[in-house]
């Protein structure tokens, strides 16, 4: 099975749409309810980061496969201001927006793989994966 979808993120309603679509795809890929909720929660945080910091961006959600594993990959991409200090942004409790600062470190804990590329003035791309087990 190879499914993929893209969700444009520009408002708080899009955050809900993205996580619902992500949950549906995760379930159709055979993730259990618990994992589907972890994935939906991670999508919610990634989409919210886009709305909060970049105003708009895009999430792409698709199935991924290796020889031995099947999983889901989410790429959150924006052309926002970028992150000045990625190390701090990945630390619990760090926030420049007055939030709880759990977003990125939380997403990292919810998923199996986490990668972030951010260039100040160019934008941020976060790629996360979760494998079925």
């Amino acid at each position: 099975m190879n499914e993929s979808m893209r969700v444009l993120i520009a408002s708080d309603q899009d955050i809900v749409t993205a996580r619902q679509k992500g949950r549906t795809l995760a379930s159709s890929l055979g993730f259990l309810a618990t994992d589907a909720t972890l994935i939906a929660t991670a999508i919610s945080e990634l989409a919210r980061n886009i709305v909060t910091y970049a105003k708009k961006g895009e999430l792409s959600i698709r199935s991924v496969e290796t020889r031995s594993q099947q999983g889901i990959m989410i790429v959150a991409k924006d052309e926002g201001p970028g992150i000045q200090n990625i190390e701090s942004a990945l630390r619990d409790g760090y926030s420049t927006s007055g939030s709880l600062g759990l977003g990125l470190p939380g997403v990292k804990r919810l998923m199996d793989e986490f990668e972030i590329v951010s260039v100040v003035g160019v934008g941020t791309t976060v790629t996360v994966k979760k494998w079925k087990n």
Partner: protein
Amino acid sequence: MEVPVLKQGQFLIATVQAALTDEDLIQLRIALVERVVVARSRGVIIDVTSMDVMDSFASRTLREIAQMIRLRGAATVIVGIQPEVAFAMVQLGITLEGVVTALDLEEGLAYLNQAFKNDS
């Protein structure tokens, strides 16, 4: 989607019926903090059984609601957090510390009745 708030005796019950946007959560906060005074309620129950995801924003807003309502002299109980939602919250790092939670509406009402049984 607006969250309906019902008055039952000296308590208010807000039942979340679908996934909430950030704006819905903020509206809920405004509505409850107002209603608790107008209705002279002693306690508020927020039933989140239908919430698909409790992310950092939702948790923060619920915690703020509980704190604001306490400052207005009433108690708040969050009921119905689903097991998989609780699992995701803990992974994310959310504890809802300082907020009273209960299994379901019945337990939430029992808690409030107990808390206010001596001064009603």
